[in-house]
Protein backbone atom coordinates (compact mmCIF):
# COMPACT_ATOMS: atom_id res chain seq x y z
CA UNK A 1 0.00 0.00 0.00
CA UNK A 2 1.37 3.42 -0.93
CA UNK A 3 2.14 5.98 1.79
CA UNK A 4 -0.61 8.37 0.72
CA UNK A 5 -3.24 5.66 0.48
CA UNK A 6 -2.25 4.19 3.85
CA UNK A 7 -2.37 7.54 5.64
CA UNK A 8 -5.76 8.47 4.14
CA UNK A 9 -7.21 5.01 4.98
CA UNK A 10 -5.94 5.07 8.56
CA UNK A 11 -7.02 8.68 9.09
CA UNK A 12 -10.54 7.95 7.81
CA UNK A 13 -10.73 4.76 9.90
CA UNK A 14 -9.74 6.66 13.06
CA UNK A 15 -12.22 9.42 12.24
CA UNK A 16 -14.98 6.83 11.79
CA UNK A 17 -13.90 5.31 15.11
CA UNK A 18 -14.25 8.63 16.95
CA UNK A 19 -17.65 9.31 15.35
CA UNK A 20 -18.73 5.80 16.33
CA UNK A 21 -17.56 6.38 19.91
CA UNK A 22 -19.63 9.59 20.06
CA UNK A 23 -22.71 7.82 18.69
CA UNK A 24 -22.40 4.88 21.06
CA UNK A 25 -21.72 7.18 24.03
CA UNK A 26 -24.94 9.05 23.19
CA UNK A 27 -26.95 5.81 22.95
CA UNK A 28 -25.59 4.52 26.26
CA UNK A 29 -26.20 7.87 27.92
CA UNK A 30 -29.66 8.43 26.38
CA UNK A 31 -30.80 4.86 27.12
CA UNK A 32 -30.66 3.00 30.41
CA UNK A 33 -26.89 2.66 30.30
CA UNK A 34 -27.21 -0.87 28.92
CA UNK A 35 -26.66 -1.02 25.19
CA UNK A 36 -26.38 -4.29 23.30
CA UNK A 37 -24.07 -2.73 20.69
CA UNK A 38 -24.45 -2.68 16.96
CA UNK A 39 -22.56 -5.82 15.92
CA UNK A 40 -24.51 -7.11 12.87
CA UNK A 41 -23.15 -10.64 13.39
CA UNK A 42 -24.58 -10.75 16.92
CA UNK A 43 -27.92 -9.31 15.84
CA UNK A 44 -28.21 -11.78 12.95
CA UNK A 45 -26.98 -14.97 14.59
CA UNK A 46 -27.37 -14.27 18.30
CA UNK A 47 -23.71 -15.23 18.76
CA UNK A 48 -21.00 -12.74 19.69
CA UNK A 49 -18.12 -12.02 17.30
CA UNK A 50 -14.48 -11.81 18.47
CA UNK A 51 -14.75 -8.02 18.78
CA UNK A 52 -18.08 -7.77 20.60
CA UNK A 53 -17.66 -5.51 23.61
CA UNK A 54 -14.85 -3.42 22.11
CA UNK A 55 -16.88 -0.20 22.04
CA UNK A 56 -17.96 -0.77 25.65
CA UNK A 57 -14.34 -1.45 26.52
CA UNK A 58 -13.14 1.87 25.05
CA UNK A 59 -16.01 3.73 26.74
CA UNK A 60 -15.08 2.13 30.11
CA UNK A 61 -11.49 3.15 29.51
CA UNK A 62 -12.57 6.76 28.91
CA UNK A 63 -14.51 6.52 32.18
CA UNK A 64 -11.27 5.41 33.87
CA UNK A 65 -12.38 1.85 34.66
CA UNK A 66 -9.55 -0.31 33.28
CA UNK A 67 -10.92 -3.49 34.91
CA UNK A 68 -14.30 -3.12 33.19
CA UNK A 69 -12.52 -2.30 29.94
CA UNK A 70 -10.50 -5.53 30.16
CA UNK A 71 -13.60 -7.55 31.02
CA UNK A 72 -15.69 -6.07 28.16
CA UNK A 73 -13.06 -7.02 25.57
CA UNK A 74 -9.26 -6.79 25.92
CA UNK A 75 -9.12 -5.87 22.20
CA UNK A 76 -10.67 -2.53 23.20
CA UNK A 77 -7.38 -1.54 24.83
CA UNK A 78 -5.56 -2.23 21.56
CA UNK A 79 -8.17 -0.20 19.67
CA UNK A 80 -7.87 2.70 22.13
CA UNK A 81 -4.07 2.66 21.78
CA UNK A 82 -4.34 2.63 17.97
CA UNK A 83 -6.86 5.49 17.95
CA UNK A 84 -4.72 7.59 20.27
CA UNK A 85 -1.24 6.98 18.92
CA UNK A 86 -1.63 6.54 15.16
CA UNK A 87 -3.31 9.89 14.27
CA UNK A 88 -0.53 11.67 16.19
CA UNK A 89 2.12 9.53 14.50
CA UNK A 90 0.68 10.29 11.04
CA UNK A 91 0.43 14.01 11.84
CA UNK A 92 4.08 13.97 12.95
CA UNK A 93 5.09 12.19 9.75
CA UNK A 94 3.17 14.63 7.55
CA UNK A 95 4.59 17.68 9.33
CA UNK A 96 8.17 16.46 9.07
CA UNK A 97 7.71 14.89 5.56
CA UNK A 98 8.87 11.50 6.83
CA UNK A 99 7.49 7.99 6.29
CA UNK A 100 8.19 6.36 9.66
CA UNK A 101 4.63 5.02 10.07
CA UNK A 102 4.53 3.69 6.50
CA UNK A 103 7.80 1.82 7.04
CA UNK A 104 6.57 0.49 10.40
CA UNK A 105 3.29 -0.71 8.80
CA UNK A 106 5.04 -2.57 5.96
CA UNK A 107 7.50 -4.17 8.40
CA UNK A 108 4.74 -5.13 10.88
CA UNK A 109 2.68 -6.74 8.07
CA UNK A 110 5.67 -8.89 7.09
CA UNK A 111 6.37 -9.92 10.68
CA UNK A 112 2.73 -10.74 11.46
CA UNK A 113 2.40 -12.84 8.32
CA UNK A 114 5.22 -15.11 9.54
CA UNK A 115 3.94 -18.33 11.10
CA UNK A 116 5.90 -17.74 14.32
CA UNK A 117 3.70 -14.73 15.16
CA UNK A 118 0.54 -15.52 13.18
CA UNK A 119 -0.29 -18.79 14.98
CA UNK A 120 -0.10 -17.35 18.55
CA UNK A 121 -2.11 -14.32 17.34
CA UNK A 122 -4.84 -16.56 15.87
CA UNK A 123 -4.95 -18.64 19.08
CA UNK A 124 -5.28 -15.44 21.13
CA UNK A 125 -8.19 -14.21 18.99
CA UNK A 126 -9.92 -17.61 19.22
CA UNK A 127 -9.43 -17.70 23.03
CA UNK A 128 -10.88 -14.19 23.29
CA UNK A 129 -13.81 -15.25 21.10
CA UNK A 130 -14.54 -18.27 23.33
CA UNK A 131 -14.47 -15.93 26.36
CA UNK A 132 -16.94 -13.68 24.51
CA UNK A 133 -19.32 -16.64 24.19
CA UNK A 134 -19.30 -17.02 27.99
CA UNK A 135 -19.89 -13.30 28.51
CA UNK A 136 -22.36 -12.35 25.80
CA UNK A 137 -24.28 -15.45 24.65
Amino acid at each position, binding site marked *: *MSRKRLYI*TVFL*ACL*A*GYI*WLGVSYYFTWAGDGQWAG*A*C*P*FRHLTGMP*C*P*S*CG*STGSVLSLIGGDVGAALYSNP*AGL*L*LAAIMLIIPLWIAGDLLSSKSTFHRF*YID*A*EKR*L*AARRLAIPAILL*VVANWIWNFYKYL
Partner: protein
Amino acid sequence: MEENKVDMFIMVNGKNFESHMVPQIREKLLKADESKWSLIQSLDFKNPTMLLIISILIGYLGVDRFVIGDVGLGIGKLLTCGGLGIWTIIDWFLIMGATKEKNLQKLQQYT
Protein backbone atom coordinates in the same frame (compact mmCIF):
# COMPACT_ATOMS: atom_id res chain seq x y z
CA MET B 1 11.26 -16.79 -22.57
CA GLU B 2 9.85 -19.12 -25.21
CA GLU B 3 6.49 -18.14 -26.62
CA ASN B 4 4.81 -21.48 -25.98
CA LYS B 5 5.86 -21.45 -22.31
CA VAL B 6 4.51 -17.91 -21.86
CA ASP B 7 1.25 -18.81 -23.57
CA MET B 8 0.91 -21.85 -21.35
CA PHE B 9 1.45 -19.64 -18.30
CA ILE B 10 -1.18 -17.17 -19.53
CA MET B 11 -3.63 -20.00 -20.21
CA VAL B 12 -3.23 -21.43 -16.71
CA ASN B 13 -2.94 -18.17 -14.75
CA GLY B 14 -4.68 -15.57 -16.92
CA LYS B 15 -7.81 -15.61 -14.75
CA ASN B 16 -5.75 -14.53 -11.73
CA PHE B 17 -4.92 -11.15 -13.30
CA GLU B 18 -6.93 -8.18 -14.58
CA SER B 19 -7.82 -8.99 -18.21
CA HIS B 20 -6.44 -5.65 -19.46
CA MET B 21 -3.07 -6.49 -17.86
CA VAL B 22 -2.68 -9.88 -19.59
CA PRO B 23 -1.13 -8.54 -22.86
CA GLN B 24 1.42 -6.51 -20.85
CA ILE B 25 2.24 -9.54 -18.67
CA ARG B 26 2.74 -11.62 -21.83
CA GLU B 27 5.11 -9.01 -23.31
CA LYS B 28 7.08 -8.80 -20.08
CA LEU B 29 7.39 -12.58 -19.76
CA LEU B 30 8.55 -12.89 -23.38
CA LYS B 31 11.35 -10.42 -22.61
CA ALA B 32 12.24 -12.12 -19.31
CA ASP B 33 15.23 -14.39 -18.96
CA GLU B 34 14.73 -18.13 -19.53
CA SER B 35 16.30 -18.90 -16.14
CA LYS B 36 13.31 -17.33 -14.37
CA TRP B 37 10.83 -19.81 -15.85
CA SER B 38 11.01 -22.41 -13.05
CA LEU B 39 10.64 -19.69 -10.39
CA ILE B 40 7.69 -18.03 -12.12
CA GLN B 41 6.02 -21.39 -12.69
CA SER B 42 6.27 -22.21 -8.99
CA LEU B 43 4.65 -18.95 -7.84
CA ASP B 44 1.43 -19.47 -5.91
CA PHE B 45 -1.23 -17.06 -7.18
CA LYS B 46 -4.46 -16.57 -5.27
CA ASN B 47 -7.68 -17.43 -7.09
CA PRO B 48 -10.00 -14.35 -7.11
CA THR B 49 -13.16 -16.52 -7.15
CA MET B 50 -11.96 -18.45 -4.10
CA LEU B 51 -11.28 -15.14 -2.35
CA LEU B 52 -14.81 -13.98 -3.15
CA ILE B 53 -16.20 -17.15 -1.52
CA ILE B 54 -13.94 -16.61 1.53
CA SER B 55 -15.04 -12.95 1.66
CA ILE B 56 -18.74 -13.85 1.60
CA LEU B 57 -18.39 -16.63 4.19
CA ILE B 58 -15.83 -15.31 6.68
CA GLY B 59 -14.91 -11.86 5.37
CA TYR B 60 -16.56 -10.57 8.52
CA LEU B 61 -13.47 -11.66 10.48
CA GLY B 62 -11.06 -10.12 7.95
CA VAL B 63 -9.89 -13.56 6.76
CA ASP B 64 -10.11 -12.50 3.08
CA ARG B 65 -7.68 -9.64 3.70
CA PHE B 66 -5.33 -11.85 5.71
CA VAL B 67 -5.25 -14.43 2.89
CA ILE B 68 -4.14 -11.92 0.23
CA GLY B 69 -1.49 -10.49 2.58
CA ASP B 70 -3.23 -7.28 3.66
CA VAL B 71 -2.59 -8.09 7.33
CA GLY B 72 -3.13 -4.51 8.53
CA LEU B 73 -6.54 -4.22 6.87
CA GLY B 74 -7.42 -7.71 8.13
CA ILE B 75 -6.71 -6.68 11.72
CA GLY B 76 -8.74 -3.50 11.18
CA LYS B 77 -11.68 -5.55 9.91
CA LEU B 78 -11.39 -8.09 12.73
CA LEU B 79 -11.26 -5.47 15.49
CA THR B 80 -14.22 -3.45 14.21
CA CYS B 81 -16.78 -6.27 13.67
CA GLY B 82 -16.04 -6.07 9.93
CA GLY B 83 -16.40 -2.29 10.00
CA LEU B 84 -19.87 -2.86 11.52
CA GLY B 85 -20.67 -5.08 8.57
CA ILE B 86 -20.37 -2.20 6.10
CA TRP B 87 -16.72 -2.81 5.22
CA THR B 88 -17.52 -6.54 4.89
CA ILE B 89 -20.14 -5.82 2.23
CA ILE B 90 -17.88 -3.30 0.41
CA ASP B 91 -15.11 -5.91 0.34
CA TRP B 92 -17.37 -8.43 -1.43
CA PHE B 93 -17.09 -6.09 -4.42
CA LEU B 94 -13.43 -5.10 -3.96
CA ILE B 95 -11.76 -8.37 -3.02
CA MET B 96 -11.49 -9.88 -6.51
CA GLY B 97 -9.78 -6.74 -7.85
CA ALA B 98 -7.51 -6.58 -4.78
CA THR B 99 -6.53 -10.24 -5.25
CA LYS B 100 -5.65 -9.66 -8.92
CA GLU B 101 -3.60 -6.61 -7.95
CA LYS B 102 -1.68 -8.62 -5.33
CA ASN B 103 -1.05 -11.40 -7.87
CA LEU B 104 0.38 -8.85 -10.29
CA GLN B 105 2.62 -7.38 -7.58
CA LYS B 106 3.89 -10.89 -6.80
CA LEU B 107 4.66 -11.58 -10.46
CA GLN B 108 6.37 -8.20 -10.88
CA GLN B 109 8.72 -9.04 -8.01
CA TYR B 110 10.15 -11.91 -10.03
CA THR B 111 10.16 -10.54 -13.59
